[in-house]
């Protein structure tokens, strides 16, 4: 470990535990607590990654979760942020975005073609000829992609959890810890969250050589840890701010949604890089990055450094470097060192050369990074005077030229920022109630001021959370010393001065974008992609704004700033998805179905039997089920239907208003088809409405619309002020349909209800006992045979079904599934809402004019339907085709084609053994059907299939079978038997 320093007070590593791993196949060792970058640097690795566009060598810049040029991957995970991810024993790491190896990346040749690859070149180069774009797109994507995803890898998906608290403090530095303590002391329950594995924030690494700061840090941490009202969550990134103080925290264990009553944002500030020639090569890093490497991991960032600074923090960093034995070649100050306080004087006293009013023109690169630095004085216009340049040999440049607030959460909460001309930093304006910005994000830099700011806001946040009134505590003012330089950007003749390291954007790129007219920061962002890389502009947006402002001769405020949307850092999709929870509903007869060999299918939230039998016998099984219903008796579980009870003196009025047909004139003991449209006249639901008494109805809905129809009813009742109550009994009752010419024969012995045609006619509803338990029976006809819907309490239904199967054994009763039901109803020409209708279908198109009672005064959608009726331009029609290989390939959504144009589509199609043809339903534009009744359908392989329009229903056109029941009709054939 060539760069590992002796132990540093407060370091994060455990030197007792050595961890071995590999990087590009080379063996590397680190300590427990090391970040990957730190361990690699400790082992003498200098080039840790390659840049996105030009594949230039890159290394540590911030060591703070923003080093997006140092992404690595394992076989299972990609784009691991090496600057913060901790090493684990046995890791086999590879860099991403490398063609070859880190040392010899073939794609680095792209640097030679830089002049041909300016910003936005792909917008201008690859759009013609149009047909070539897919070719270029594939190649660009292959080159531009970061990392490779192992799509076969199965992640363990964590549960998303909730956490309720009074006050959430985001940021565990001096300000945040002070706020947490203050809030807890005021009686609030506090969550203190920090993205780092340990508390401390900048207090831990900035001026780490100052023992008094170290003592202050220990004292604060001890106080926070001893406070029972504070829950500390480290390694927890606040990834966004949502309304009502909801802040999701992302941890290795998943997302915790913290719902707080007040939030203190103490997220600090991002140190910003300076823009000069070759400011991206290994060895150039933020001063805070170097301080983190040393204070956290005891890793020496370089051996001989030059510090470029525009604030007092740079001199403190210089002292830190000296304290660990690092050789300091020079300090370059963009202004006057005399204004930087005691630290600057101390540096001078130590004999370190200080270049006032100077800057770096470029770094001279050696084999693997910085070899020398060219320092030039600045003239009065702020330009570099290269005629007076000084070349200093060094392998490191540490920059300390300014900060940008880590303000994403505040922006997302709607806080406006403005430019502070003293600080040369964006600072927050008024904050919504219960939200407080403290510390450096608020422009407060002095340690004692930060603590006072934190305490004051912690107290206020606690008062907000607990509903207390407190006086306005005194808050410190913002720093009156600039901690940022107004324009730390310097021209470079060769144009290798980078503004955005994520996207390899240079000063020239942004200048060109501004010159091309992208004069708004949002426009420039989208054209140049500045701030759109993985670090989301944390180190580039501020300089980008400064550059655009200067190029357009505007102020920073006039230029504007961008709002970082959630997520603040990239969040693993597995964390966003959370545990795979797929609520599936099972009917009470699920075990019955399983015991009869059902193949289940998902129908919305329900698991339903598709058919009964082996998958290999699918066609045969479905045909047998259809034949059973047509010739004897079948039983289908219809528990999935929505079941809603409506009662009260206004029940009939409500029914009339909800449904297109008049319901108030249904006789007690009878049912009626119930069609519901929305206010735009679109079909949204259908079912049966049964009148149980003068003021009580029982209605069914489709399986998928029970909840939405119930909600619609609730809303309408409130809106209309009707005296009526409704109950959603969908899950509370089970239901079956026993159908077939012999169904009466099967059911008769099991019920006390008189099933005779006279006592229980078609469309009647009766209540009585089935197998000794209360039941509601309806004579319905969805499948076109004599049939009885039986609705019962779940436990009672289970017993009744067993009895029905026993009784029906003599007529070979069998359960039938969804597929058989679909075919049976298709033969009868009945539609399924959602399959034979879509989000634009009105009843007239669906051939259901008969279900719209226009003479009613009012029903939902009536006015629209009156307008739509004369405008109908398509119809749902039945069609048949002779059975052949092509006709059997017709499927739902195949298009009706006439004269080369799309003129409709199939909604349902199947082979009917009963009819002896392929039958179907299709929407067809008016005028499409030829004089001979034919039209054409294009199947998947492009062939056209000629079909013939047919009258509906295909089966039993006079409805005699469903109305009377075959067992009462002499001489009526049973078509199913013929098949």
């Amino acid at each position, binding site marked *: 470990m060539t760069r590992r320093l002796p132990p540093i007070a407060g370091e994060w590593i455990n030197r007792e535990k050595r961890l071995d791993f590999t990087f590009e196949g080379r063996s590397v060792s680190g300590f427990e607590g090391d970040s990957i970058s730190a361990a690699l640097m400790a082992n003498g690795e200098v080039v840790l990654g390659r840049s996105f566009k030009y594949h230039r060598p890159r290394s540590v810049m911030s060591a703070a979760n923003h080093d997006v040029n140092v992404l690595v991957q394992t076989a299972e995970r990609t784009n691991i942020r090496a600057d913060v991810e901790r090493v684990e024993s046995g890791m086999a790491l590879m860099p991403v975005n490398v063609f070859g190896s880190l040392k010899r990346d073939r794609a680095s040749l792209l640097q030679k073609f830089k002049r041909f690859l300016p910003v936005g070149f792909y917008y201008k180069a690859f759009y013609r000829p149009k047909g070539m774009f897919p070719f270029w797109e594939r190649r660009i994507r292959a080159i531009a992609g970061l990392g490779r995803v192992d799509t076969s890898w199965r992640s363990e998906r964590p549960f998303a959890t909730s956490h309720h608290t009074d006050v959430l403090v985001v940021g565990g530095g001096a300000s945040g810890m002070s706020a947490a303590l203050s809030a807890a002391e005021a009686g609030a329950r506090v969550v203190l969250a920090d993205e780092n594995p340990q508390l401390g924030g900048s207090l831990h690494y900035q001026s780490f050589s100052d023992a008094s700061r170290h003592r202050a840090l220990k004292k604060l941490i001890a106080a926070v840890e001893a406070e029972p009202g504070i829950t500390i969550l480290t390694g927890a990134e606040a990834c966004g701010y949502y309304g009502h103080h909801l802040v999701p925290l992302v941890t290795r264990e998943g997302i915790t*949604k913290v719902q707080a009553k007040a939030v203190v944002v103490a997220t600090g500030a991002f140190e910003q890089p300076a823009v000069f020639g070759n400011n991206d090569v290994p060895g150039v890093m933020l001063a805070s990055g170097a301080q983190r490497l040393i204070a956290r991991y005891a890793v020496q960032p370089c051996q001989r450094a030059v510090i470029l600074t525009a604030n007092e923090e740079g001199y403190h960093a210089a002292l830190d470097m000296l304290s660990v034995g690092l050789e300091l070649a020079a300090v370059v100050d963009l202004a006057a060192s005399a204004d930087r306080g005691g630290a600057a004087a101390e540096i001078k006293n130590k004999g370190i050369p200080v270049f006032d009013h100077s800057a770096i023109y470029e770094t001279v690169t050696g084999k693997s990074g910085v070899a020398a630095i060219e320092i030039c004085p600045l003239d009065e216009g702020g330009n570099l005077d290269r005629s007076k340049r000084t070349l200093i040999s060094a392998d490191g440049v540490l920059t300390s030229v300014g900060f940008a607030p880590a303000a994403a959460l505040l922006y997302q909460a709607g806080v406006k920022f403005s430019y502070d001309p003293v600080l040369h930093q964006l600072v927050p304006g008024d904050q919504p109630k219960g939200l407080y910005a403290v510390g450096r994000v608020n422009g407060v830099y002095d340690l004692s001021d930060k603590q006072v700011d934190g305490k004051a806001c912690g107290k206020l946040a606690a008062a907000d959370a607990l509903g207390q009134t407190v006086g306005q505590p005194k808050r410190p003012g913002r720093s009156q010393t600039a901690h940022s330089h107004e324009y730390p950007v310097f021209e470079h003749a060769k144009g290798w001065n980078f503004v955005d390291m994520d996207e390899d954007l240079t000063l020239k790129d942004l200048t060109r974008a501004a010159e091309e007219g992208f004069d708004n920061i949002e426009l420039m962002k989208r054209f140049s992609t500045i701030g759109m890389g993985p670090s989301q502009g944390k180190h580039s947006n501020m300089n980008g704004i400064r550059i655009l402002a200067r190029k357009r001769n505007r102020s920073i405020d006039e230029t504007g700033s961008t709002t970082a949307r959630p997520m603040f850092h990239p969040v693993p999709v597995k964390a966003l998805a959370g545990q795979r929870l797929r609520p599936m509903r099972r009917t009470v007869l699920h075990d019955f179905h399983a015991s009869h060999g059902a193949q289940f299918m998902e129908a919305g939230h329900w698991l339903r039997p598709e058919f009964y039998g082996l998958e290999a016998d699918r066609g045969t099984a479905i045909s047998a089920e259809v034949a059973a219903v047509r010739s004897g008796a079948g039983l289908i579980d219809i528990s999935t239907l929505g079941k809603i009870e409506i009662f009260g003196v206004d029940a009939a009025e409500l029914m009339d208003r909800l449904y297109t047909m008049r319901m108030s004139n249904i006789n007690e003991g009878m049912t009626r088809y119930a069609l519901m449209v929305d206010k735009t006249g679109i079909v949204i639901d259908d079912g049966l409405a049964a009148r149980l008494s*003068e003021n009580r109805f029982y209605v069914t809905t489709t399986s998928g619309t029970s909840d939405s129809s119930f909600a619609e009813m609730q809303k309408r009742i409130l809106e209309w002020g009707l005296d009526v*109550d409704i109950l959603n009994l969908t899950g509370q009752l089970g239901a079956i349909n026993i159908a077939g010419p012999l169904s009466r024969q099967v059911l008769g012995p099991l019920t006390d209800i008189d099933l005779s045609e006279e006592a229980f006619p078609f469309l009647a509803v009766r209540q009585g006992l089935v197998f000794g338990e209360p039941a509601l029976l309806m004579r319905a006809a969805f499948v076109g045979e004599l049939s009885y819907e039986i609705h019962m309490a779940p436990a009672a239904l289970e017993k009744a079904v067993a009895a029905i199967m026993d009784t029906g054994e003599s007529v070979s009763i069998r359960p039938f599934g969804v597929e058989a039901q679909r075919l049976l109803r298709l033969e009868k020409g009945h539609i399924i809402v959602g399959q034979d209708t879509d989000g634009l279908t009105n009843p007239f198109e669906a051939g259901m004019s008969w279900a719209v009672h226009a003479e009613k005064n009012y029903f939902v959608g009536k006015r629209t339907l009156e307008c739509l009726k004369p405008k109908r331009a398509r119809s749902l029609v039945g069609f048949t085709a002779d059975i052949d290989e092509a006709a059997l390939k017709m499927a739902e959504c195949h298009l009706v084609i006439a004269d080369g144009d799309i003129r409709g589509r199939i909604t349902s199609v199947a082979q009917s053994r009963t009819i002896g043809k392929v039958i179907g339903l299709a929407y067809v534009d008016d005028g499409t059907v030829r004089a001979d009744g034919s039209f054409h359908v294009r199947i998947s392989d492009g062939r056209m299939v000629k079909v013939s329009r047919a009258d509906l229903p295909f089966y039993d056109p006079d409805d005699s079978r469903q109305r009377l029941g075959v067992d009462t009709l002499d001489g009526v054939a049973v078509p199913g038997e013929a098949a």
Partner: protein
Amino acid sequence: MTGIPTIASLDGFILFHIRGTAAREAVEAVLPDAPTAVLTVHDLVDGGFIACLGKKEYFLLTHSGQPLLQPERRDNLTVYARSDALFLLSGDGVEEWLKRTSSLDLRNRPPEEFLMSRLLKISCWLKKASGALGDGYLIGCDPTYSRYFTRALETSMQSCAAGK
């Protein structure tokens, strides 16, 4: 979390849903002290409860041997026995698990509160258990979600206990 909560089906009880303008009257006839505040609950000695869900809506959970009410349908009243899946969650860690899983703030909730929420992506009701049922929570949901909910509860609780 200090332990894994246990999940038990609650057998031997019957849950009535009483709805309609005569609901209050029907409830008062058998339980004069029934709560009137919405989403509050009074415990019954047998471990059951009477909960007010709205001005004209109640849940009554009683031992099935002494149901207090009978199913009834009038123009202004429906009383029927619900088929809800009923669970008793008890043991160490129940509170912690609920806090982590529910979007409701369960800190310092009054014991007489009847909660309606979504847990593990389905709608359910919950209340603190009492009397013979001991500590813990009663949870009820649509019976068609029973199997899903049981498994999801078990998985979630184990995950929570493991600190995941």
